[in-house]
């Protein structure tokens, strides 16, 4: 098999694993937000950790390995095109954020939820560890946009990142409110 199709396959597989994992984490967090029971919250925290370990992390590693190899194979420099800078820049940001802030928070939530299992209700401050994840999907969408549309100017790349940040802000504000409303219904 030639190297290029193989690298392309790994790159796509990485994106599917990472994107699918982030969506599954979002669904899990949405479930955690909606519940009042400590048991269901603990279960959602457990699944969030499982999705990170089985989908997000392997996907990020696949992208991190195949991406630079693809660039080398195609003879692309790291600052050659705005879409390329958008892709690796956002990926590096997400990777660092995911392995520092998000990882610490989901580990903390998991530990906390295991200690809470015997409780009957859940305090609002115990949910705060979830917020950092709302940045992941909008920025991942911006990476997909850069990779598929390949804009040759900085304007569309900046617009995509801007829209991603606005979406993350909206999710951070709206999701907890919607979840609270659902809990009170």
């Amino acid at each position, binding site marked *: 098999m030639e190297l290029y199709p193989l690298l392309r396959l790994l790159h796509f597989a990485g994106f599917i694993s990472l994107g*699918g994992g982030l*969506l*599954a984490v979002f669904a899990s967090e949405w479930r955690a937000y909606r519940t009042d029971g400590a048991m269901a919250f603990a*279960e959602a925290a457990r699944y969030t950790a*499982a*999705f990170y370990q*089985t989908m997000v992390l392997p996907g990020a590693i696949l992208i991190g390995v195949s991406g630079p190899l693809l660039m080398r194979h195609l003879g692309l420099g790291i600052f050659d095109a705005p879409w390329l800078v958008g892709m690796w820049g956002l990926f590096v940001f997400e990777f660092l954020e995911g392995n520092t802030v998000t990882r610490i928070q989901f580990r903390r939530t998991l530990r906390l939820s295991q200690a809470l299992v015997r409780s009957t209700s859940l305090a609002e401050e115990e949910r705060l560890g979830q917020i950092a994840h709302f940045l992941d999907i909008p920025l991942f969408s911006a990476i997909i946009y850069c990779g*598929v*549309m390949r804009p040759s100017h900085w304007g569309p790349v900046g617009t995509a990142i801007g829209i991603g940040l606005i979406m993350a802000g909206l999710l951070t504000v709206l999701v907890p409110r919607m979840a609270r409303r659902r809990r009170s219904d």
Partner: protein
Amino acid sequence: MKTIGKVLHLSGLIMFIGGIVSSIAMNHVTLKSEDAALVYHQRLFVSEITSVLTIPGMWILIISGGLMAFAERSRLFGHRWLIAKLLLASAVVINGAFILTPLVDQVTALAEQSSSQGHLLRSYVTLKAEEDLYGTLNFIMLIAAFFLAILKPQLRRL
């Protein structure tokens, strides 16, 4: 239209495969559990993932695939790998929409009954095995279609 179709197709694929793989990951967490309440909660989550990720992802894949096929209609039957991919995708959709989706609901309903009775019902175990079988079949076909789409082999006649 082709580029928008590609973005949608990739998004649909991420949702569809993401939904399936996350269900596999959840099954793995409760693989050997005999706790009917835990299994029931896990099934509720599997059903939720199926309804918010897997099924919408499948429809996005179908619609975007249709858009791209329409844009490339003159060359649609010129590549054997594309014909093979379309056949596999059709089989995945038929299996997913008409066999797996009703099975997921039935298994979750049986998990609820198991939870209320305090132990896993035999009918739950049987139907869950059936769901696993069709789920594995769908996953294999989907991976084969994915390989065809990315590698685009010539598929010469022997």
